[in-house]
């Protein structure tokens, strides 16, 4: 056994409790990690990636147990060690970076207090040393105002900075191993680059080994030396990064690689004199005294998809709220088939409300957990169309058929008995139930795995061609834009910076902001991040947001 093996997991099996039964989550996976090596763990949600990562710390979540196998860290089996022994390692030798820094920083304490906690409690440094060290690490990770940022509370710091502060916190005891659990999944593409660069720097500078968990192949290609693909808690394939990307051997891996193949058929441009279904005319809006939208105008025509892209905070969702009347605009108007809609939904009649429906990002929270699927879909059928009894039942059955779900199998289930993709389909059926002309899709695929997301996109595309629906598709994912959009509206700081047909948008020259967005989308090439950062350094591509 060579000495540079840091972590060796053998035939590890982890069970999770469902009701009274223990069901396997991880079914005998082997893992080996050398000092200073970065391992990428990829797979869809539910594949057991996070469970594996946590198990490397000798930790299982409540309701889970290690059923067998060994986790040797520096030669000691954590599966057989005492709780106290594992606790001494955690934070000190093995650190963890969570998916959502906003949720994983304690809202009640300042960043620097949370940074210093582990080194002080583990006896690595005293408080003064830890505070000085924090500033040093913040500077290395290129956080703005490194001397001062630690004294802020988590809610006072932006998402990307918070994620870097969490990476800094993980470095605080100079651990031998860091588990990165989807650290950039919740971030915008432009912020993601900064965090990826910071993580790579940190790992390089201290020679830390890392397990990098993600479902985004392009991201893992930038970070990892070798890649393991997991599915249903079993290892599918393992190889070094370049081999894995160029020559995957397993069918499942190949399907993951090929997932972005879907592209909607090109549609004829609308007649120049056609009335758009929805038309925003110079719309401005504000939350209280804070203006968020500044004179936004765009049109959406029948049977076409307008993708609205931009980072979080750019006003995409606010524009949707204005259209639905949830946030009455302060200026401008919204036309529906050429007629102005009342600004507030309270003043709209039932038919005007029926015409514009919405599908939400988080199907989990958008469906009432106490209602059966049939009731969820029946409600708009009854409310908008006034159908009852047999007519209502037939309509719901037809809707379920439309979204490719068996009415008899799924009708009586509760939302929590469905998978993420199925829940999102129910969200679509509920929107369709009102028989609208126009649907707002707010980040509908961003919470889903790529294979499932593709299924949703195909479904939306089919429904559009069958029913002639107009979509406003809000997203920050340019790959989704490529596959489904007819027209693109790019938003930044509450303004439209560029708009036009998709083909034109993806062809230079771009507005600098569009350029930044486009160049920030990770590519499957392992050298992409290195090349991009170098090019930005040389000033060949845009590296900063243009001012507001």
């Amino acid at each position, binding site marked *: 056994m060579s000495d540079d093996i840091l972590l060796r997991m053998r035939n590890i099996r982890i069970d999770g409790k469902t009701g009274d039964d223990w069901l396997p989550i991880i079914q005998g996976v082997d893992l080996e990690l050398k000092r200073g090596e970065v391992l990428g763990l990829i797979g869809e949600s539910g594949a057991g990636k996070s469970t594996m990562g946590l198990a490397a710390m000798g930790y299982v979540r409540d309701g889970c147990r290690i059923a067998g196998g060994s986790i040797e860290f520096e030669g000691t089996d954590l599966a057989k060690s005492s709780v106290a022994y594992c606790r001494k390692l*955690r*934070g000190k030798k093995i650190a963890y970076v969570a998916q*959502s820094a906003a*949720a994983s*920083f304690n809202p009640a304490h300042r960043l620097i207090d949370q940074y210093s906690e582990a080194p002080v409690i583990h006896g690595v440094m005293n408080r003064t040393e830890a505070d000085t060290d924090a500033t040093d690490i913040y500077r290395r990770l290129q956080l703005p105002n490194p001397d001062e940022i630690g004294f802020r509370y988590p809610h006072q710091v932006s998402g990307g900075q918070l994620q870097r502060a969490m990476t800094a916190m993980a470095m605080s005891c100079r651990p031998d191993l860091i588990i990165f659990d989807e650290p950039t999944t919740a971030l915008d593409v432009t912020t993601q680059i900064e965090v990826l660069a910071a993580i790579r720097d940190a790992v390089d500078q201290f020679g830390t080994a890392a397990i990098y968990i993600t479902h985004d192949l392009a991201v893992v290609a930038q970070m990892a030396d070798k890649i393991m693909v997991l599915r249903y808690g079993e290892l599918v394939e393992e190889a070094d990064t370049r081999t894995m990307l160029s020559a995957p051997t397993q069918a499942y891996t190949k399907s993951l690689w090929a997932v972005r193949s879907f592209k909607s058929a090109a549609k004829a441009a609308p007649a120049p004199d056609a009335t758009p279904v929805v038309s925003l005319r110079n719309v401005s809006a504000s939350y209280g005294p804070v203006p968020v939208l500044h004179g936004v105008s765009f049109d959406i025509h029948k049977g076409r998809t307008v993708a609205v892209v931009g980072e979080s905070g750019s006003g995409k969702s606010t524009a949707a709220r204005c259209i639905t009347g949830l946030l009455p605009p302060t200026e401008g108007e919204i036309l529906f088939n050429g007629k102005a809609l009342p600004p507030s939904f309270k003043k709209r009649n039932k038919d005007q409300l029926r015409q514009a429906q919405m599908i939400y990002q988080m199907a989990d929270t958008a469906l009432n957990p106490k209602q059966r699927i049939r009731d969820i879909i029946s409600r708009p059928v009854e409310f908008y169309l006034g159908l009852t009894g047999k007519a209502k039942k037939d309509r719901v059955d037809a809707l379920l058929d439309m979204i490719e779900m068996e009415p008899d199998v799924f009708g009586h289930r509760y939302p929590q008995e469905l998978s993420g993709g199925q829940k999102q389909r129910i969200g679509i059926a509920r929107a369709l139930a009102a028989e609208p002309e126009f649907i707002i899709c707010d980040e509908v695929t961003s919470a889903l795995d790529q294979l499932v997301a593709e299924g949703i996109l195909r479904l939306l595309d089919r429904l559009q061609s069958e029913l002639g629906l107009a979509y406003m598709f809000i997203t920050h994912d340019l790959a989704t834009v490529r596959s489904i959009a007819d027209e693109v509206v790019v938003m930044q700081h509450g303004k439209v910076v560029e708009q036009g047909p998709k083909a034109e948008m993806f062809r230079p020259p771009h507005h600098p902001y569009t350029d930044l967005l486009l160049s920030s989308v990770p590519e499957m090439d392992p050298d992409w991040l290195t090349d991009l950062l170098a090019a930005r350094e040389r000033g060949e591509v845009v590296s900063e947001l243009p001012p507001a």
Partner: protein
Amino acid sequence: MHPILSMALRRLALGLLTLLVISIVIFSAVEMLPGDLAQEILGQSATPETVAAFRKELGLDKPPVERYFSWLGGVFQGDFGKSLASKREISELISGRFANTMFLAGYAAVIAVPLAVVLGLMAALFRNTWFDRFVNVFTLSTISFPEFFVAYILILLLAVGFPFGLALPFGLLGLWIAVEGYGAMKENFKINKSPLIPVVFLLIGIGLIINMVMGFMGVENWNPITKEVRAFPSIANISPESSLADRLDRAFLPALTLTMVVTAHMMRMTRAAIINLLASPYIEMARLKGMSPWRVIIKHALPNALAPIINVIALNLAYLITGVVVVEVVFAYPGLGQLMVDSVTKRDITVVQACCLVFAVTYILLNLIADILAIATNPRLLHPK
């Protein structure tokens, strides 16, 4: 101006408005009480003429609206008027009684609040264990019995002396707590290296066993405050001349009764608020930083659970002050509650009004303080972006 300060001022103004509304409600409610003070004082045999003359003398013949405003005007200047029955100044009558009530409430709060919060934290730490269940069952039992019942049980056990019949079961219970508690801790938490918890359980057990033995020997309970072997007094008749030690001794049983009544709420809210947060990602993060379970609860969960805990504490403190009527009557404690009960029976409406208003002020003030504290402990509001 700091947002907290402006918020506090706004709440204070709202509190005053609430108070004004309450004063109207109190006045109208008292007005609607059946019976008549003049009739009550003069007796059944009084002639209608005498009653009418007496009513005029007391000012009861004036229209209610006029009486309300003259009463309110007086209250704003600190003048509650005179007791209709005893002719004494009400402010003088109330001040001593109010101080007594505050003393009793403070006494009970000093025992109950730390006890409830610590028990709540421990129940959260050792959730779903034997300890958790025991604390829950015990506090819920004490809150389920009416106050006077708890009071009489305590008098029976601690004032009359420990009855032989109960000595044996209590002693056995103590032994069982000691053994079981130690076993449960060891098994569930692998914290047998920390001597604190088994020691606490052993002490409880030993205390109850000593109690049992002393019961068998016929020795009455030893009173640690007066350093003499005798039971706690069942009559809490303190007077302005009583020394602090004497007051603490005499008010012990009422304070203990109140403690048992209010602990359950606060303890359960603390437990629930903490457990509610234990699934948060930042709690998992703290665990993954290698923090001990106790530190996770105190340092990471508690600061985020303060708002609901503070609110339920304030509610219970308000109850300690305004809800003591029954306990004061049982122990003959000269507090505001007893004064109010006496005044109601005597139809002494001005005193009843004054007592109600004092209670209302306490209630509003405590809730105001709770609101401000709940906001002040929230960094999002204290340190805006």
